[in-house]
């Protein structure tokens, strides 16, 4: 049962990603495919006992970040066509470089995996466990994240809001 579900969600995640690339001509559909992919990923997280992370995947990525993408699409009315990579050689180069870097990273992780997987307790991914870890061992990254979010607000305001006058 669990392996069937794994395959279903994996195929949905990859299918969503492919659908996203395939519908680039219409960016709104593209964003919706991204939501499908995110939802499938969230299900995979939940299957791994990382329940809270899975939920956050839905709330933040599917529910918030893709909404922002949609807003940008609708805001600029980008639905007509794609911004061609051929017109922007630098973008093309950065894109390829990033893709290669991510692939290498993923490959190195796959090589380092030790099977079988370590057994984790069912409590491992619960909200309370995450809270305990986050507020003791990972306190510094947590506070830094707070500063980062504040910086993001300031930056967004600086870009979007001109002084009156």
């Amino acid at each position, binding site marked *: 049962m669990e392996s069937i579900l794994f395959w279903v969600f994996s195929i949905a995640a990859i299918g969503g990603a492919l659908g996203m690339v395939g519908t680039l001509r219409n960016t709104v559909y593209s964003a919706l495919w991204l939501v499908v992919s995110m939802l499938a990923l969230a299900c995979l997280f939940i299957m791994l006992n990382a329940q809270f992370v899975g939920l956050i995947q839905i709330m933040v990525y599917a529910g918030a970040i893709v909404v922002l993408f949609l*807003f940008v699409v609708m805001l600029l009315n980008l639905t007509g066509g794609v911004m061609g990579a051929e017109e922007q050689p630098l973008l093309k180069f950065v894109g390829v470089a990033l893709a290669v870097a991510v692939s290498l990273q993923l490959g190195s992780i796959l090589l380092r995996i030790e099977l079988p997987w370590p057994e984790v307790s069912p409590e491992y991914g619960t909200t309370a466990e995450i809270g305990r870890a986050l507020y003791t061992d990972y306190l510094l990254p947590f506070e830094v994240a707070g500063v980062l979010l504040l910086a993001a607000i300031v930056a*967004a305001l600086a870009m979007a809001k001109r002084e009156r006058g």
Partner: protein
Amino acid sequence: MSEYAGLGLFMALGAGTILLLLVLTSVLGPRLRFAEKDEPFECGESPLVSPYRRFPVKFYMVAISFIIFDLEVVFLYPWAVVFRDLGWYGLLVAAPFLSMLSIALAYEWMKGALEWD
């Protein structure tokens, strides 16, 4: 994982019912199409402008503030759950985070990003 069996059943039932209603209406409904009926509603006129235009940037500001605050709230859920166990230490470590949240809100307020005019 047993709780997800019920959840799956509930989701299947909900989605199935809604889908059934959608299919029923498209099967049972009549189909009488002509150009005037197919026109989008515009108070009896033919639409003058396309709805696909650029829209004000303040909607984008709402979306970006939403993301930032949503992320901060997400960090606070685990904190709220373990708050009693952490005690005064919990309040102490969350104080910088909460004050940054408040500063962000105050800054937006001061800059007029929350005004809707």
